[in-house]
């Protein structure tokens, strides 16, 4: 039964008579799958390839890493990147402190509110950041307006959709109730159950929420530019309009590094899961 559920589409061992009948019908999906994946590959990889080629292109036509190597020494880069990193740190800390307990709480106590929370946390995807920042700059008290960390406070809102989603799927995959009951029956208080039982089990969800939040903060442009702070992506646009090569190189690096980071985190987690499944099967 488990095998049936795990492989819904792939060919299954069946009676030989039946197989002859099923085979021809099964081949078509594989063709269109190939076509879809191929087209998607072309659409998504060509710009990455083009950006890499462009960034590597030397003035004389040869290939050179000069554009990549010169990023750190560009005027304003370290200030902008440093600001973005600090904003990312603050945003991530607030996001996790806010969303992890909330997501756990919703799962544990108010499962019927999960759909409502899906709705609320999806809102920042559709609310225009440009509108939000207009409102924020109007109502924010002066002491907050003078500091870039006002941006971090708003980035928490922007990061909500994917942070919540990633935590939500992490919580769905684990047996939260049993874990919390076990913690309680061993006499742990809620806070230590949360920190010592739930959080370690949520590690990969928390890590991917973190990476996505950092990606968002590094890439966010609208609010930063309108609040007149030069963050990483504002710097990419403005630092030197004549030298697009460096801008492209920085864009490429930012995307690829974040992506690879996320992949590495998830594959570590997968190996762990596989090991625990094997251990379970061996037992």
């Amino acid at each position, binding site marked *: 039964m488990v095998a049936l559920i795990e492989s819904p589409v792939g060919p299954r061992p069946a009676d030989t008579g039946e197989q002859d009948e099923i085979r021809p019908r099964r081949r078509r999906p594989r063709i269109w799958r190939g076509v879809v994946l191929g087209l998607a590959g072309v659409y*998504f990889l060509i710009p990455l390839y083009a950006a890499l080629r462009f960034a590597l292109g030397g003035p004389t036509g040869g290939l050179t890493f000069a554009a990549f190597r010169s990023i750190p020494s560009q005027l304003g880069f370290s200030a902008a990147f440093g600001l973005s990193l600090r904003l990312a740190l603050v945003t991530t800390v607030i996001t996790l402190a806010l969303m992890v307990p909330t997501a756990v709480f919703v799962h544990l*106590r108010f499962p*019927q509110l999960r759909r409502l929370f899906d709705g609320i946390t999806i809102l920042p995807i559709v*609310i225009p950041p440009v509108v939000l920042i207009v409102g924020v700059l109007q109502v924010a008290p002066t002491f907050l307006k003078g500091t870039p960390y006002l941006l971090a406070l708003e980035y928490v809102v922007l990061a909500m959709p*994917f942070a919540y989603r990633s935590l939500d799927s992490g919580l769905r995959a684990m047996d939260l109730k049993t874990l919390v009951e076990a913690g309680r029956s061993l006499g742990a208080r809620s806070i230590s159950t949360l920190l010592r039982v739930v959080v370690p089990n949520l590690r990969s969800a928390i890590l991917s929420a973190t990476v996505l939040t950092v990606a968002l903060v590094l890439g966010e442009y609208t609010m930063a530019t309108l609040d007149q702070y030069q963050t990483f992506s504002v710097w990419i*646009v403005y630092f030197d309009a004549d030298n697009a090569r460096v801008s492209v190189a920085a864009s490429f690096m930012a995307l690829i590094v974040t992506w690879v980071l996320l992949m590495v985190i998830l594959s570590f987690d997968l190996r762990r899961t596989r090991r625990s499944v094997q251990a379970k099967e061996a037992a």
Partner: protein
Amino acid sequence: MSSTTGAYDVSDPGFTPGFGDVAGDGAATDRDRRSLRKRLVASAGLLPFSLYALIFLGVPTIAIVLGAFEKPTGGFTWSNIDLAAHGVYLKGFETSLELALFASVLPAIAGLFLANAVHTGRRQTLKRIVSTASGVFANFGGVPLAFLFIATLGSTGLATRWLTDIGFNPYTHGFDLYTFSGVAVVYAYFQIPLMVLVITPALEGLRPAWREASDGMGARSWQYWRYVGGPVLFPSFLGALLLLFGSSLSAYATAEALTSGSIAITPIQIGSFLNGNVIAGQENVGKALGFGMIVLIAMVMVVYVYLQRKASKWLR
């Protein structure tokens, strides 16, 4: 004692605050009162989040709505709304809606096919590559993507040169990266990943047993999608489409970075108000434009919530 009641509390399948105790008789009032208190304590756990959302999402939104009806000198006026609903600003809304439509319908369809192709495949590596890439691309926002595309489809971009070599120069066929068509293409680059992210849970909710039953009864693939998969998926698809629509309607960074603000869509117009390009007396027209967007987004979200409710009938 308290730990056991706590444990009982969470494991009790009948623990449904808000509904569970309605039919309780007199003997249960003590328990009712206790669980009411517990419910209040429990909802306090949602307080930090609710407060945060209220302060950083709700209050600015309300400020925009109020500001839309205010003279720069104070006092109520319709003139901001009036200006926002005419001339260049009306045209801005039209262009925005048009762009949002283009940049949501096609990416939604493409994203659905891609998500299904990845979902039905059995290669975990592919799934992981696509899901992580989707997360990063959908999250990273417009600026890096704009530069990727300048290197690709800019007037001397790599793909432009390839296409010109095979006899199809996109720039002589009405394409221009720095106008409407170009912005729509770049939007697709984060819209398709967004679609993959939001539609995959719905695809996972399609139970294999349904496909098996339909195969078992001799249905062809298209019949499965026409009579089973399609109808179940349809509300989720429409919901995701609306989300994409809202996302492209509110996008600012890509268009700004690509066109330096020359494309007249509403977010760009709002941004130019913040940048100080304002005629005296019209300072609050930007807020009226913001209010207009909030109204549009609110309409989108009402339909979205309705569709989600429909979708939840079949998908867990």
